[in-house]
């Protein structure tokens, strides 16, 4: 890990708060140009909010603190105009709720073409061809005839693919994909993951892939960031983490994977609930659910620290956890 180049995206101390709700409590992560990073974490751990904060899409009364540096320039606090110039060709995002992101009153072809005509000033003929190409690229059959169809005429999975087509239309340098395949069946998911990998190889696009599916994370990314309660608890190379997790939460996450057991009764959900987002956490946020917790954990908050080469963990006993 001695990449000399500057990170494409570097987030430091990112905090997002909605009133009393601390959605993100301090995130540090970086994405190198062309790198693929997966963000893994429990529902409500702040993954989507992180993605939106990077895009500058947190609206009042949400408050953003910390820095989000894209190509060396901090985006936090920038004007809507500056951000708009970066969104699209700089950073594009496929939203988790993108099933609802398509306008029902315009045909999908129109919606894809509009991006090209408005942002690139293309004429409609050229935009149309590109729209067809994009739709084919994301695996929609007979794209030309389906161009005039409206969103409701597509199944959930197809609509999601159209959203991906729209996100990559402007060839972004960083694609943030917020659980883009959760609504898709495995064959299409495999196709989309292959597509994203291919796009990355062609264009050198970097990827921040938000997911809660460990197996999917492994399909697209080489690095992994595990989030818990609005913070990064572990990060490093994905295969190394899966082979030897150094945080009890990562370990529990791996154990609750349905692929790992033979009957539903053997599933091991992580007991309890994540901490209330309105309260201040003292000590380790995972302590109430951690099988390894000791008194020290409740008193003293662990820092994210290097525990082995290329690996950071936010646990007092990371070394021991890794060696179980």
């Amino acid at each position, binding site marked *: 890990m001695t990449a000399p180049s500057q990170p494409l995206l570097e987030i430091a101390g990112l905090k997002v708060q909605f009133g009393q709700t601390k959605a993100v409590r301090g995130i540090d992560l970086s994405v190198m140009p062309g790198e693929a990073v997966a963000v893994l974490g*429990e529902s409500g751990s702040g993954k989507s909010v992180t993605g939106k904060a990077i895009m500058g899409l947190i609206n009042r009364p949400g408050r953003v603190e910390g820095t989000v540096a894209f190509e060396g320039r901090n985006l936090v606090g920038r004007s809507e105009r500056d951000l708009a110039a970066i969104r699209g060709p700089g950073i594009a995002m496929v939203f988790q709720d993108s*099933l609802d992101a398509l306008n029902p009153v315009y045909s999908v072809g129109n919606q894809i073409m509009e991006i090209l005509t408005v942002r690139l000033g293309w004429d409609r003929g050229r935009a149309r061809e590109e729209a067809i190409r994009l739709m084919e690229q994301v695996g929609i059959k007979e794209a030309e005839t389906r161009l005039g169809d409206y969103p409701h005429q597509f*199944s959930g999975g197809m609509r999601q693919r159209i959203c991906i087509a729209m996100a990559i239309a402007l060839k972004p340098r960083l694609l943030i994909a917020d659980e883009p395949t959760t609504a898709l*069946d*495995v064959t299409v998911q495999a196709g989309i993951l292959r597509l994203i990998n291919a796009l990355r190889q062609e264009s050198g696009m970097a990827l921040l892939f938000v997911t809660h599916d460990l197996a999917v994370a492994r399909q*697209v990314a080489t690095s992994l960031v595990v989030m818990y309660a609005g913070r990064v608890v572990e990060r490093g190379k994905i295969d190394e983490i899966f082979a030897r997790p150094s945080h009890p939460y990562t370990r529990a996450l791996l154990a609750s994977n349905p692929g790992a*057991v033979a009957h539903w009764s053997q599933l091991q*959900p992580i007991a309890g609930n994540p901490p209330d987002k309105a309260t201040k956490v003292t000590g380790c946020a995972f302590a109430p659910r951690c099988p390894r917790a000791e008194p020290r954990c409740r008193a003293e908050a662990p820092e994210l620290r290097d525990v082995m080469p290329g690996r950071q963990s936010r646990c007092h006993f990371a070394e021991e956890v890794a060696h179980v």
Partner: protein
Amino acid sequence: MSDRGRTKVLEVDRLTKHFGQAKALDDISFDIAEGEILAVVGESGSGKSTLARTILGLLDATAGEVRYRGTNLLTLDRRRMRQTRQHIQMIFQDPYASLHPRRRVHELVSEPWRVHRGVVERPQWRSRVAELLDQVGLPQSYADYYPARLSGGERQRVAIARALALAPDFLILDEPVSALDVSIQAQVIKLLMTLQLQFGFTAMFISHDLALVRLIASRVIVMYRGQIVESGDTRAIFEAPAHDYTRLLLSSSPSLEGPSAVESR
């Protein structure tokens, strides 16, 4: 086939649904025995959600019959259909769209009792909602939140609480956990299965997560372009898939073992 001798809760007979020229459902027939969990798997657009909606009468079938405990649902009058719906509940695929944006969690979960009077009396609503939220692992404070404040997983748990509110006899689960992370998935699946053991409801479980299907369903039907291409015992199908599409499905499932896609290129 292990469950064949038991009472049929649902019998779907030559069900067909066309959207204009497109055949979303083409001559579908299957049945579900009491207490059974039948999984429906298939690619995006193969008609799984259409099947669920047609069974519930949310879409008008082009042809065929759907019998729930012997009565054909498709010919019921409005009033009888509404009564029957007390016993059949559905959890929708997309938790971002299935909850009314202007209703608090408490109202969403108690809504079924407003529609079907007499199931739970109004004074008990608060405490029953509290119980249901607890069962699906949500803190009490969420009762006063609007869905916009909840994450995807939290919303889906609200939808599950709402579906369980009427203690249904037959539950259609349209990819209920695909929006949830694995640890909550495990929790919700365990919850659903424990409730299933407890109340013995019958379920149709639509999913594309084969790992999950393998864990909970006794039988599977595999859909492809509006048709059933394979059906049978879960284990049998997983061990010896007969149809090409089923094989593709099995091989596409991402797994934690073996080389990862990124590394292998």
